[in-house]
Each structure stands twice: as C-alpha cells, then as structure tokens.
C-alpha cells in the first residue's frame, strides 16, 4: 500500500504515514462491524443450541439486531458511580479496545496481505495483551464497587495465568517454522491438512489444544468467564458501566474472538495457503483464511454454549497443575520429534498423515454420534407413530409378571 502512495508522487514520510492511516481506518471499521455481527451470530447460535429462537425481529432473521443494540447503547444515559475515579473510569473501556485492536497490526489476511509482517510478530501478539490486563484492572478499581474490583482482580489474574500456557502452546509451531514472523509461520505449512502444524505430530496437536483452551481463558469466555460470573460477582469488572462504555467492552470481547480465530488459523491451521494448481490469488487466499478463522470462531461459540463454568480454584489448578506441565511435555516432545525426524522427510510424512487419519476417524465417530442424536430428536416424543413410545411395552410386561407372581 505504501508503494501506491509513492507512485502518486508523494514524499516517502508522508506516503508511509498515509499507508498506516488507511490500514488503521480499514481495520478499526472491520473490527467494529465484525464485533457487531458476531454479537448477533453468537446469540443466534446459542439460541439454536438451547432450542430457543434468539433475536429474529430486526431485519430478516434479525440480522440488523446489532445495529439496534448499538444505537440503544449510544442513546442510553452514561452513569458515573458515586466516588468513581472519573478519568480512569472513562479510559478503561477504550484501553481494552486498544489492546484488542493493536493485535490486528500483525494479523494476516491470507498468505499475501499482512498489515505489518513484524520480525517478532507472534511475540508482539502475546505481549500486547498487557493493555487488556491494564484496562480490566483499571475498570475494576475505578468503578468504586466491590463486585467490579474483585472481578477485575480475578480477570487480571486469570489472563496473566493463562498467558503462559498460550505462549508455551505457540512454541512448538515457532520451533517447527524457525521464525517468529507471521508470514514465515504460514509459509512453513502447506495447503493440505496433513501439512498443518495442528496435525504435524502428536505434540504439535497437544500444543494446539493447549493454545486454544488458553485462548478461551484469555478472552474470558465460558467455561472461564469467572470474572463476570453472575452468581458471584454480578457482571464483574463492567458491573458499573452503561451506555457507550459498555458497548466498548462488548466490542473488545467480540473483537477478541476474531483475534483468537485468526491466530489459530494462521499458526495451526495452515493460514491462507492454496494448492499449487490454484495459483497465487490474494482474494482466494483471503477467502480460505477467513473461512478457517470463522470456523475457529464457531468452535469458540460452540464451547461457550455447551460447557458449565469452572470454579475459581479449579480454574487456577487447571492452568498451573495440568496445562503448564502439558505445555512442557509438548515443548520437549516437539524438540525430540524434530531431532529424530530431522533427516527423514519420509517419517515426517508418515506421522503427519497418520495424525490426520486419526483426526478423520474421530471426526467420523463424532459425526455418527451427532447424527444419532439428531435422528432421536427428530422423532416427536408424544406421538404414537414414533418408536420412542416403545418404553410403554416393558411396563405392561412387568405388570404381567407381577400378576403371574
């Protein structure tokens, strides 16, 4: 994009500055619209999973619900709690949005478009989370409320705790690619599933699971949404927020789902790599990458609406006693795997194809199970035509037995 402005005859400083500005404007608008649409999609998916309808009134299938929500939140009165630290109270939500938005600097858009392919891209992605932690702590303290303070403390502790398994979970992929750069990480994988880091070997698969679980915890979603546990803390660190500041928190929360999805897709699921016969099309690569990202986002939603919430001590135990040792196992395992298969491409091929076959097996088993469930649900429970009425017969038999006895 910088060359575009240079071609127009603008000086170097101005053109690179303009290029940055254009990227920033594009990305922040994408973030805002994506977060809005996702808030609607998430509610619809949740409703589907819980046999409800969900928002379906505003626009066809309720697709404009997020606009209505946004307008409502902007028009709402912005309440300052008594004794709140006003400046910090107003600053905190926007710090959180900054923390999420800042990660978009290194997030790729397919194999060919990356806003800034930093040499330390993945490290930047991990360390910029600090802004979110500070935003949460600030919101918790400035609200002058016990719920908010406790929620903020919990949330910050949780993010700091799960940052370690997340970073350790990324390490095997970094080792295999030999680089911290997003572009290199994607280029080290291929288009086919058996060339992805997620299926490279058992240890890489383990690190993929650790990364994904840790990311869920870092984005404060169920089963790790203790900071906002309604039964204990009302709404956690944003208990006292209303109006547009509350909307900013939601923006950060839903925007974060894209960040998790995009990192998962780029580092573990092959990024936007295309098979050779499709050529080097940036658009197609973008489509592939977006599809993978959205699938990871759907996984996040799926987990959120099917699992119950952890207790606080279980949450801490889970990170320190299980995930961290497993992360070390994955790290050393990957090192040993790389040493053993360093010279034999054959062994690498066999292991990765085997991993993919195992995955397919699990997938088929799972699909079969789901199909079974769907079939059982399709047959109406109370109609005499269904075979679910069958349990009536055994009772007759037992009665008959009782009579004979």
């Amino acid at each position: 994009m910088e060359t575009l402005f240079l071609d127009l005859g603008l000086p170097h400083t101005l053109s690179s500055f303009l290029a940055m500005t254009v990227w920033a404007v594009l990305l922040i608008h994408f973030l805002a619209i994506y977060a809005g649409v996702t808030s609607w999609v998430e509610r619809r998916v949740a409703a589907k999973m819980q046999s409800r309808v969900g928002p379906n009134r505003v626009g066809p299938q309720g697709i404009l619900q997020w606009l209505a929500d946004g307008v409502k939140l902007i028009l709402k009165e912005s309440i300052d709690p008594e004794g709140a630290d006003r400046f910090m109270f107003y600053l905190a939500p926007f710090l959180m949005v900054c923390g999420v938005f800042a990660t978009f600097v290194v997030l790729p858009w397919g194999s060919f478009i990356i806003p800034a392919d930093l040499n330390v891209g993945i490290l930047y992605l991990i360390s910029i989370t600090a802004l979110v932690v500070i935003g949460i702590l600030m919101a918790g303290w400035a609200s002058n409320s016990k719920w908010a303070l406790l929620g903020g403390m919990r949330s910050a502790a949780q993010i700091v705790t799960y940052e370690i398994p997340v970073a350790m979970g990324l390490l095997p992929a970094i080792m295999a690619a030999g680089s911290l750069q997003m572009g290199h990480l994607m280029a080290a994988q291929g288009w086919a599933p058996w060339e992805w880091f997620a299926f490279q070997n058992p240890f890489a698969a383990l690190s993929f699971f650790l990364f994904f679980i840790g990311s869920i915890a870092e984005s404060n979603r169920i089963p790790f949404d203790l900071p906002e546990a309604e039964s204990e803390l009302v709404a956690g660190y944003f208990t006292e927020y209303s109006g547009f500041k509350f909307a900013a928190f939601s923006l950060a929360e839903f925007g974060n789902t894209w960040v998790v999805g995009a990192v998962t897709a780029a580092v573990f699921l092959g990024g936007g790599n295309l098979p050779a016969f499709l050529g080097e099309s940036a658009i197609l690569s973008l489509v592939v990458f977006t599809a993978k990202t959205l699938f990871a986002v759907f996984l996040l939603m799926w987990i959120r609406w099917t699992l119950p919430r952890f207790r606080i001590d279980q949450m801490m135990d889970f990170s320190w006693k299980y995930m961290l040792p497993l992360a070390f196992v994955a790290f050393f395992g990957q090192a040993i795997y790389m040493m053993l298969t360093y010279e034999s491409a054959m062994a690498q091929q066999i292991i990765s194809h085997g991993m993919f076959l195992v995955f397919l097996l699990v997938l088929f088993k799972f699909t079969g199970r789901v199909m079974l469930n769907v079939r059982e649900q399709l047959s109406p429970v109370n109609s005499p035509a269904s075979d679910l009425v069958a349990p009536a017969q055994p009772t007759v038999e037992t009665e008959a037995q009782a009579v004979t006895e």
Partner: protein
Amino acid sequence: MNLPELFFYLFAGVTVGFAVVVAFSTNLLHSAFTLFFLLFFMAGFYALLGGDFLAMVQLMVYAGGINVLLIFGTMLTADVAQPERSNLSFQGVLTFFSGVAFTAVLLAVFEHTTWPLLEQPAEVGPTTIDIGKLLLKEYVLPFEVISFLLVAAMVGAIMVVKGGKEQ
C-alpha cells in the same frame, strides 16, 4: 524530519510527561497505572533503535508482568489516595542530599567516559536469529547459570509461602 525522528521526539515527550506524573501524583494507584504507560512507551525507544526483540521483551516482562504485579500490590495497600502516604511525603533534607549526591556521581560518570560514536547508523536488521545463536553458543554457560538461579529463586519463594502456611 524523517519518520523515526518524529517518533523519537513523540516517545521522548510522552515518556517524560508520564515520568512526571509517576513522580508527582498524589494517588499511588495513578502512579502505578502511569508507570505502565511509561514502560510501554519505553518499548518504542527499543523499537526505534532496531532492538525488535528487546522491545517485545520490555512489553512482556516489564509492562505486562512486573507492572501488573505492582498494581496488584498497590491495590492491596490501604489508603492509596492519602496524600500524606504518597509521593508528597518525602524527607526534604535527606532527599535533597541524596539527590544531589546521586546526580553528582552520574554527572562525573558522564564526564569521564569516552562514548564511542558510530560514523553512521549501524545496519539494522532482524535481531532474533543472532540473539538465539549467541545465547545458545557463546553465552550458553551464563544463560544456564541465570536460569538455574531463577529456578532456585522460584523454589525458595514456594518454600517461604509453604512455611508461612504451616506456622
């Protein structure tokens, strides 16, 4: 003025401003939060100097780790907003003498050191590969000794906590 220079003055101005707030704020927690932004902008200097890895470590360790711990600690302190317990409560005479002495030593060091100047800015490139090679080849012994020290410190911390519980 080229872009790095512009950003240098921007970072420098902002960092000094934050430092003033950290030093003179009457609210301890404001100081702690401002310190975060100070450390955050320090990473900008490292990035301008070509130390990409160092900048990220600054963000991760100082801003994301140490400062968050510091804020936790400050939150557990009672009466953070009391002026008599914050930055303004310093011992005037003692501070004056120690400050003057410290500045004098610093000035002497600055005066008597010959600072080597490069004729032109060094070639700035990715540093991660070189850092990795140096750590695992040339400086592998210091690296291992320091990691051993850190493990010892961690075990010690756990022992202290456990001992406290038993008593």
